[in-house]
C-alpha cells in the first residue's frame, strides 16, 4: 500500500524531512510543497540527502516558482490537479503537519 508523504515545512527548521526519509517505504513517494521546496536549493544538505535517496520526488510547481527556485531533473514539478491525481494514485496520504 504505497503512501504519498507530503511535507510543507522548511527542511532547515526541524527534522521532519530526516524522519520522513528514514521511515519511507520502497514504493512511497514524497511531495514537497510550501517551504519544504527550499530543500531543492542545490548545494544544501537537504538537497544532497534527497538526491542520494533516488526516491520518487515531486514538488508543487507554483511554490517552487514563488521562491525563485528551480527543480533538479530528478524531481518532478506538478500543478494542483496533478497533486490531486497523485493523491488518488496512492493508497493513502501522510501529511507531516
Amino acid at each position, binding site marked *: *500500500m504505497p*503512501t504519498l508523504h507530503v511535507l510543507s515545512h522548511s527542511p532547515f527548521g526541524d*527534522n521532519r524531512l530526516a*524522519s520522513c526519509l*528514514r*521511515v*519511507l*517505504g*520502497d514504493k*512511497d513517494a514524497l511531495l514537497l510543497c510550501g517551504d519544504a521546496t527550499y530543500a531543492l536549493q542545490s548545494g544544501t544538505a537537504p538537497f544532497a540527502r534527497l538526491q542520494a535517496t533516488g526516491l520518487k520526488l515531486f514538488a508543487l510547481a507554483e511554490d517552487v516558482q514563488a521562491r525563485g527556485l528551480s527543480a533538479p531533473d530528478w524531481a518532478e514539478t506538478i500543478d494542483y490537479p496533478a497533486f490531486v491525481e497523485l493523491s488518488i494514485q496512492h*493508497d*493513502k*496520504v*501522510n*501529511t*507531516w*503537519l
Partner: protein
Amino acid sequence: MAKSLLLISRQSPWSGPGAREALDIILAGGAFDLPIGLLFLDDGVHQLLPGQNAKAVQQKDLSANLQALPLFGIEDLFVCADSAAERGIDTEALGLDGLKVLTAPDIAALIDRYDQVITL
C-alpha cells in the same frame, strides 16, 4: 470493516497543544472502535518519560491519559528506537505497558499496514 488509523505523534508534551490533540484523536477513534495505532516519533518520545511534573508549568499531565489508553481499547503502541536513542532515552525505562520498540524499517512496514495515517 472500519478503516484502520495510525497516528504518528511527534511533538513534545510541552511544545504546544500537538501532543494532547494527537491523544484526543486517538481516544475519539478508540471510542468508535476503530482499529487504531499510536507511534511516538521524534520529540513525541518525550511524552513517554517517567517523572514528569506538569504542575511545575501550570499544565495538566498527559502521562495519566497515556496509561489509560488500554482501557479504551488502544493497545497498539509503538516508539521509534532511533528517536529515543538520539535523545538519550532508554526505551526500557519508559513507563507504558505494551509499548513496542520499532526500527526505521519496522516503521515503514507499519505505515504500509494501516489504511490511513495522521502525523501531528
